[in-house]
C-alpha cells in the first residue's frame, strides 16, 4: 500500500508540473499577479508531492521493503543504513528518480527565493516544469522504480556492488547530478528570455548565481569521482578519458565558458548571443550525458543500463529540447546581437577568445566520444580512443589558453589596452617562469617539451597573480579575489598534472614474506600476510613496513577481498599520503614459488590536483555568497 502511495504521489506530481507548464507558457495574460501566483504555488505543490514520494521511497529502502523490485535487486538487510540509502542511486531507476527530485529541487529553490522579474520567473518555472514532466514520464514509462514483486517478496535482497560501497561514491553521484540538473535554471531563463523577445530583460543577472552554484557542484562532483577512482579501482590514476568521464567533462567545459561569457553579458550587454548559445549547450550536454550513460551505447568502466528503448526516449526528448531552443535562438538572433563592437585587447575580447577555445575543447571531446561509434557503424570495426588523442589536443590548447589568461590580467573592461613585454608584471613573471622552468629542466634532467611548456604556462599564471596579490597588499590596487583564486588554482592544477606525469612511476615487484625489496628511494619489508573472514567477504591482508630515504617508517596494508554474494574480487589499495607524493600499493597474486606480486606506485602531487580543483569550487562558493551577487 505504502509503495502505491509513493508511486501515486509521483504521478500526481507529474500532472501538477504539467499544469504549471501549461499555465506559464500557453496562457496569454501572464501579466496578472493572480496567474504568476498560481504558477508559483502549483509548482511548490508539485514539488511537495514529488519530495514526499521520494522520502517514502527512502524510507522503503531503509526498512528493507523487498517487495519493491528495485530495492530487492540493489540492497540487502546486512547493509548499514547509510548504504541502504545510497543503494537508491546505485543503478538506473533510482538514479533517474534522484535526478528528477534534484531537478525539481533547483526549481523549487528558484521559485521561493526569486522575487523580481515576475514574467521571466513564471516562464522559467514553466519551462523547468515541462523538463520535469518529460523526465517523470521517462521514469514512469520506461524505468519504473516502484515496480513490485508480488505476492511474495524475497526475504533478503541482492547485494550492491562492493566497489560502490564507499562513502565517496555514495556522495559523488548526487553531487554530480546536482551540478548537471542545476543548469536547467540558466537554460530556462535563457529560453524564457527568447520567448519574451525583449532585449531589455536582463535574464543573465537572474541566472548568474544559479549558474555558478551548478558549476560548483559539477566541479566538486567530478573531483570526488576522480578521487574515488584513484583509491578504489586500484588503477592509481586520476583521469582515464573514459566515456562517462568525458560526458561529465563536456558540460563542465561548456559551463566554465558559460559563466565567463555571462559576466560579459551582465557587464556590457555584449556576447549575449554566445551566452544564450552556451546556456543551451550546457544543458543539452548534461542531458546528453544522461543519454550516453543510460542508453548503454558506449562500453565503459561505468557500464550501467543497456536498453535501447530508454535510449530512444531520452534521445527524442533531447532532440525536442534542442530543436525548440535552437529554433527560438535562430529566430531571435538578430535582435539580441549587441551593436557595440568589442575593443581590441579588452576583457571582453579575451573572454570571447575563451569561448572559442572552450568550444574547440568541447568539440574535440565530442569527437573522441562519437568517433568510435561512427567508425563502428561504417566499417564494422571497434576502435578505442584514449589518452594519446586527448593529450594531443588538450595540451597545446590548454597551454595556449594559459597564455591568453596571462595577458588578460592586464586588460580592462571595454577599453583598448596596449601590450608590451617590458611592462613590469609581464616581464617579471615571464623571467621568473622561464628560470623556474629551466631549473625544473636541469634538476629533473628532462627534455619533455610538452611537460616543460605546461609547467611554464602554469607558473606564468601563478606568478602573474602573485604579483597582483602583492600589489593589493602594498598599494591597495583592486583585485577580484574570486578570479584570483580560481585562476591561480587553474595554474596549480596545470603544474600539478605536469609534475605528476613527469615524476610518477610504478613497478610490480616479486617479494617473499620477511624479505626486503628496494624501489626508488623506498625500502620495503614484507612483514606478514593474514587471511581473515568477514561477514560478507574473505580477505587477504598483507603487512608491509616501508622506509623512505629520510628514515620515515610507515605501514602499508594492501588487501584483496572476495565477496560471497557476487564472487567479485576487489583490491583494497594501501596509500601513504604525504603533501608531495603518495606511496600507493596493491597486492596481486601469489606465484608458484611462494612469492607475491606487489604493485607499487609513487604518485607525485596527486593530492594537489584535487586540491586545486576544489579551490576552484571554493572560489565559486565565495562568489555566490559575496556582496557582488547579493543584489
Amino acid at each position: 500500500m505504502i509503495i502505491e502511495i509513493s508511486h501515486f504521489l509521483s504521478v500526481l506530481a507529474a500532472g501538477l508540473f504539467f499544469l504549471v507548464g501549461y499555465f506559464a507558457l500557453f496562457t496569454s495574460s501572464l501579466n496578472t499577479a493572480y496567474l504568476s501566483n498560481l504558477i508559483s504555488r502549483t509548482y511548490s505543490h508539485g514539488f511537495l508531492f514529488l519530495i514526499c514520494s521520494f522520502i517514502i521511497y527512502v524510507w522503503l529502502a531503509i526498512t528493507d521493503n523487498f517487495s519493491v523490485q528495485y530495492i530487492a535487486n540493489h540492497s540487502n538487510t546486512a547493509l548499514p543504513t547509510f548504504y541502504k540509502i545510497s543503494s537508491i542511486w546505485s543503478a538506473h531507476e533510482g538514479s533517474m528518480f534522484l535526478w528528477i527530485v534534484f531537478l525539481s529541487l533547483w526549481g523549487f529553490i528558484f521559485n521561493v527565493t526569486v522575487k523580481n522579474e515576475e514574467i521571466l520567473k513564471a516562464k522559467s518555472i514553466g519551462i523547468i516544469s515541462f523538463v520535469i514532466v518529460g523526465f517523470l514520464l521517462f521514469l514512469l514509462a520506461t524505468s519504473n522504480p516502484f515496480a513490485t514483486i508480488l505476492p511474495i517478496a524475497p526475504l533478503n535482497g541482492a547485494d550492491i556492488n562492493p566497489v560502490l560501497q564507499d562513502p565517496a561514491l555514495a556522495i559523488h553521484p548526487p553531487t554530480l547530478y546536482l551540478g548537471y540538473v542545476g543548469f536547467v535554471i540558466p537554460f530556462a531563463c535563457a529560453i524564457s528570455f527568447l520567448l519574451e523577445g525583449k532585449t531589455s530583460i536582463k535574464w543573465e543577472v537572474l541566472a548568474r548565481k544559479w549558474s555558478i552554484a551548478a558549476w560548483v557542484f559539477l566541479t566538486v562532483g567530478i573531483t570526488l569521482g576522480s578521487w574515488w577512482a584513484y583509491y578504489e579501482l586500484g588503477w592509481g590514476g586520476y583521469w582515464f578519458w573514459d566515456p562517462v568521464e568525458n560526458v561529465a567533462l563536456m558540460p563542465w567545459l561548456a559551463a566554465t565558458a558559460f559563466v565567463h561569457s555571462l559576466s560579459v553579458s551582465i557587464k556590457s550587454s555584449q556576447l549575449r548571443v554566445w551566452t544564450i548559445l552556451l546556456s543551451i549547450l550546457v544543458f543539452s550536454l548534461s542531458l546528453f550525458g544522461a543519454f550516453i550513460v543510460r542508453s548503454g551505447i558506449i562500453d565503459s568502466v561505468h557500464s550501467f543500463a543497456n536498453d535501447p528503448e530508454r535510449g530512444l526516449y531520452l534521445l527524442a526528448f533531447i532532440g525536442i529540447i534542442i530543436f525548440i531552443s535552437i529554433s527560438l535562438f535562430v529566430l531571435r538572433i538578430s535582435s539580441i546581437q549587441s551593436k557595440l563592437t568589442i575593443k581590441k585587447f579588452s576583457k571582453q575580447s579575451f573572454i570571447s577568445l575563451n569561448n572559442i577555445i572552450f568550444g574547440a575543447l568541447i568539440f574535440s571531446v565530442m569527437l573522441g566520444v562519437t568517433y568510435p561509434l561512427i567508425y563502428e557503424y561504417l566499417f564494422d570495426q571497434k576502435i578505442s580512443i584514449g589518452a594519446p588523442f586527448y593529450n594531443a589536443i588538450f595540451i597545446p590548447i590548454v597551454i595556449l589558453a594559459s597564455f591568453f589568461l596571462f595577458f588578460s590580467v592586464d586588460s580592462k573592461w571595454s577599453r583598448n589596452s596596449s601590450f608590451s613585454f617590458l611592462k613590469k608584471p609581464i616581464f617579471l613573471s615571464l623571467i621568473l617562469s622561464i628560470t623556474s622552468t629551466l631549473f625544473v629542466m636541469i634538476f629533473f634532467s628532462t627534455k619533455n617539451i610538452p611537460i616543460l611548456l605546461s609547467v611554464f604556462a602554469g607558473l606564468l599564471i601563478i606568478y602573474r597573480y602573485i604579483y597582483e596579490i602583492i600589489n593589493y597588499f602594498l598599494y591597495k590596487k583592486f583585485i577580484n579575489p574570486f578570479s584570483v583564486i580560481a585562476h591561480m588554482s587553474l595554474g596549480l592544477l596545470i603544474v600539478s598534472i605536469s609534475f605528476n606525469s613527469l615524476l610518477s612511476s610504478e613497478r610490480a615487484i616479486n617479494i617473499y614474506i620477511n624479505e626486503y625489496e628496494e624501489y626508488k628511494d623506498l625500502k620495503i619489508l614484507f612483514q606478514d600476510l593474514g587471511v581473515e573472514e568477514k561477514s560478507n567477504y574473505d580477505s587477504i591482508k598483507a603487512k608491509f613496513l616501508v622506509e623512505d630515504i629520510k628514515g620515515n617508517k610507515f605501514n602499508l596494508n594492501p588487501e584483496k577481498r572476495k565477496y560471497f554474494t557476487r564472487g567479485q574480487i576487489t583490491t583494497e589499495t594501501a596509500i601513504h599520503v604525504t603533501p608531495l607524493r603518495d606511496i600507493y600499493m596493491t597486492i596481486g597474486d601469489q606465484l608458484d614459488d611462494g612469492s607475491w606480486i606487489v604493485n607499487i606506485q609513487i604518485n607525485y602531487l596527486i593530492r594537489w590536483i584535487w586540491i586545486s580543483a576544489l579551490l576552484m569550487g571554493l572560489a565559486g562558493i565565495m562568489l555566490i555568497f559575496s556582496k557582488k551577487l547579493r543584489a
Partner: protein
Amino acid sequence: MKFLLKISVFIIPMSFIFLFFILLTNEDSYPGADYDIYEIPQFELKDLDNIKTINTDLFSGDFVLNVWASWCITCVIEHPYLMRLNSKGIPVIGLNYKDEREDAVIWLNKYGNPYKTIIHDFKGTLALDLGVTGAPETFLISNGQIVAHFQGEVNDLIWKDVFLPIIEERKMF
C-alpha cells in the same frame, strides 16, 4: 554569412541527434563478427615471460584466441567473462597486443589470468597478419584454422550468438 551561421547552429546538434538515432536503431546486432575460414599465419614470438618461443605449432587443437592489452578499457570489462570460459575448461590463449611486458604483468596480477599461454606481440606483427584492428578481439581456432572472428567485447550474449553455433556445428572442445 549570417544565414550560414544560423543554418550551422541548427544543423550541427541535429546531425548529432540523427547520428545517435541511427546508431541506436541499428538492427545489425553483431557488426564485429565474421566467419571466414583461413589458416593461422606463420609466426614465431616469445611468450609474456620472455622465456618460451611460440610458433604456429601451438594451434593444433581447439582454442579461443583473445587479443588484449593493458591499455584497453573494454578488455577490463570483458575480462570476467574470459575467466568464466577458463573455469569452464575452454582453453583461452592470450595475444598481448602492442603492450609493454611489465604493464601486461601488472594488469594480469590485478585482475587474474584467464589465459593458458600468452603470446607477446609487441610490434603487432602476428596481429596484423590475423587482421586485428584493435583490442579486444577474439578468434575461434579449430586445428590450425580460424573459424570465427569477433571484434569487440565478448560476453555471454556474444558467446551464445556468435561462437556457440560454430562450436556445436564443429563439435569443438
